């Protein structure tokens, strides 16, 4: 594997590239269609370039380990507020997650509903395009509308438009106190009602998740100064009291652990295939979940107050789907469900006019190679995306096909 140490060598390497390249950070987030190509790692482009706690800004090289960033910030009582999930558990891989991988996947966590996604915290990027040109966009200041916004375009482009070399981020102070309200026994519409009431209250809930199962529960997180958290816990408890039994967790370690498990979708780690569906909460509960029940026995987990729905299919269930529909093997059974999910999400009856997408996050290569991992876009939008790829990567060498 080619390990790059400087932006200049990265540019040179891409300028001279003869064939397809598989871009890697820490290699812990192999999402998308499997890519054939020579591996190129940017993990060597590592280090903090600039950190101004008083300005809430951090500039780092793309290969910097996430853990190093978190430690640097913690020393100043700050953090990456978008709470990027760690994919190692569900994907069953080792390795060192880097900030570049987080940006390439626009990876966010439960706090997304309150503060925004990874893309919302990006102030600027430097990247090398497929022709080997070094490009900067945005900057390191909090507000910047100078020229087109390629920063957000790069976020979530999975290394198909350019290889990110440097990233500027907005960071936030870590609140002193955290508490989680847990509503026990809440499922279906009642779970949705609890999350909806919480996030439409003025109490700034920074996490709202529904974990179904034999002991279903809704978890709601509050963060801030001690007096304020205490006040909001009481207020929320009161507003939700008719929905069931509520307990409150205030131990910091327990809170960290609970939300880490939700963030990393730990309950669904053993899935054979795992999807992430993004739709408005109402459409998930009244459109998607009832449809899913008709098709297959799946485990689910709802984050973002219901706006992000994780769907897990076991291997056994994939085999029975294959049998039931006269398909060859488990991968075929999962592919059948995959197509149903993507069609459902695009169906205005089901998405209630709000749009959405179903993305296959985990699955065997045989599955990921045969389906459209990302939600297919309508023709004119797909044409625009293809046009952009053609301009940013004229030879089609950067993670070719990954997002097709």
């Amino acid at each position, binding site marked *: 594997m080619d390990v790059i140490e400087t932006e200049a060598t990265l540019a040179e390497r891409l300028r001279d590239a003869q064939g397809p390249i598989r871009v890697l950070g820490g290699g812990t987030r192999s999402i998308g269609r499997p890519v054939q190509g020579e591996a190129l790692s940017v993990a060597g482009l590592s280090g903090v370039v600039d950190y101004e706690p008083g300005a809430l800004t951090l500039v780092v090289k793309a290969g910097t380990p996430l853990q190093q960033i978190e430690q640097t910030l913690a020393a100043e009582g700050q953090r990456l507020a978008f709470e990027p999930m760690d994919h190692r558990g569900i994907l069953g891989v080792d390795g060192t997650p880097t900030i570049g991988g987080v940006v390439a996947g626009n990876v966010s966590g439960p706090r997304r509903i309150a503060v925004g996604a990874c893309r919302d915290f990006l102030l600027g990027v430097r990247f090398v395009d497929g022709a080997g040109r070094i490009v900067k966009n945005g900057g390191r200041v909090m507000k910047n509308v100078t020229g087109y916004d*390629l920063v957000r375009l790069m976020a979530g482009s999975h290394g198909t438009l350019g290889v990110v070399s440097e990233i500027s981020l907005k960071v936030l102070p870590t609140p002193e106190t955290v508490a989680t309200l847990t509503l026990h026994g809440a499922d279906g519409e009642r779970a949705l009602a609890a999350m909806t009431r919480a*996030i*439409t209250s*003025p109490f700034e809930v920074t996490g709202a998740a529904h974990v179904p199962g034999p002991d279903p529960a809704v978890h709601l997180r509050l963060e801030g100064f001690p007096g304020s958290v205490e006040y909001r816990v009481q207020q929320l408890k009161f507003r939700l009291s008719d929905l069931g039994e509520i307990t409150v967790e205030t131990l910091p370690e327990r809170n960290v652990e609970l939300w880490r498990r939700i963030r990393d979708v730990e309950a669904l780690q053993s899935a054979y295939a795992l999807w992430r569906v993004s739709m408005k909460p109402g459409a998930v509960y009244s459109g998607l979940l009832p449809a899913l029940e008709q098709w297959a026995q799946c485990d689910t987990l709802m984050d973002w107050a219901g706006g992000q729905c994780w769907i897990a299919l076991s291997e056994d269930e994939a085999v029975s789907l294959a049998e039931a529909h006269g398909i060859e093997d488990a991968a075929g059974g999962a592919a059948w469900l995959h197509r149903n999910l993507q069609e459902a999400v695009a169906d205005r009856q089901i998405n209630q006019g709000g749009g959405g997408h179903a993305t296959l996050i985990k699955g065997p290569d045989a599955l990921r190679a045969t389906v459209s991992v990302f939600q297919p876009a309508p023709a004119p939008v797909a044409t625009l995306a293809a046009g*952009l790829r053609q301009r940013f990567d004229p030879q089609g060498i950067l993670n070719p096909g990954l997002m097709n």
Partner: protein
Amino acid sequence: MEMPEPRPEILANKAGLIARLQSVLSRDAVIEDPAETQAYECDALVAYKCAPLAVVLPSSTEEVAAVLRICNDMGIPVVPRGSGTSLAGGALPTADCVILGIARMNDVLETDYDNRIIRVQSGRTNLSVTGAVEEEDFFYAPDPSSQLACAIAGNIAMNSGGAHCLKYGVTTNNLLGVTMVMMDGTVIELGGAHLDAGGLDLLGLICGSEGQLGVVTEATLRILAKPEGARPVLMGFDSNEVAGACVSDIIKAGVLPVAIEFMDRPCIRATEAFAGAGYPDCEALLIVEVEGSDAEIDEQLALILKIARRHSPVELRESRSAEESARIWLGRKSAFGAMGQINDYMCLDGTIPVSQLPFVLRRIAEMSGEYGLDVGNVFHAGDGNMHPLILYDANKPGDLEKCEALGAEILKLCVEVGGCLTGEHGVGIEKRDLMTTQFTHDDLDIQMAVKDVFDPKWLLNPAKVFPLDVSGPRRAA
């Protein structure tokens, strides 16, 4: 300001164009009389004026598509326009263009409190979006000072900010979806009511693209539950350095105020004379606002005041009532108006790293002396977005040119210290020719490649954003 020569063949065939436009729009939606098109000759950057060839005021996405198909077919430039409050000349016409005004499209299409969204036609004004949901105690967060007039379409095109964006972010952080018409008339939808893109984030690319990639006709916006209350505190300091250090300490302490506004002495004096808000006569003044319940506000303000006291303020004024809050904000809110009373002014919009604040303010004062033009500073300090107001006299020959030269120097300074040319107003024509101070050839080339993909004939909002010599070959192609 250099603009491309109008194309004679377009001017010569005005009648042909008007006839085709009238075939797809109602009679009163096509304006061609020069006496009336003159009303569209400029936006809020009034130093530059040029009446368009014609103005259309469509009422639906289909009508917008029909107009664009015609203009695309005939090779006619189109300048989209919201409410014309751009301070960057973003909506400045060319003599051979059609102004596509979105003002008649201002309906609310859907409000959904449970899912925290509102869908509107893009001509709706910013303030009336909040107006549509405030009965239910919701609001739309981005609040540019021009919010009474400016349209959501303009906000999206400029990625506008506001006084409260330190906490709530700018337009791009609150925009979930758009319906947009491409120059060839194709209607597309990007985003929706969900929280992230299923493929490339084209919505993020559209926001801030200054009307050059497509015409936005509808938008899905995030609405939020109103906080229980908000209260400001006013602090005066005897130097800009100290005020700057205080801002940085507040941020580091872990309080996240919704707003931190900064005014310097020239601006304090002008607003005092105009609005009589009772501001102290000092070097620098901060207004810091926090939100929450009464007790939560007390908790945060106590911490902020403790920090402020460490910086020996010459004045500390905590609001205890709605009237006192209004008084504290009064001067800040009338600052632009106050400066306008004394003189003509040009409002800059560069952003700098917060740590550079004292240095930049000192340099601006020096340059102001060198050029012999007064400069007042009033801005969003928490995020480093400066608004130096350069005072000049439009009737005095040479004054505008001097003011522009000083403005350019200040913006270059912002870039030099690690900042940018524009934090929220956009490039438009105003900062177009300075783009090469911030960007390399390759930086600009790839942005223009985006334009090639969305608008291959370069007909949408011509002559904005990119220096003419840089975009020349592409426009000619």
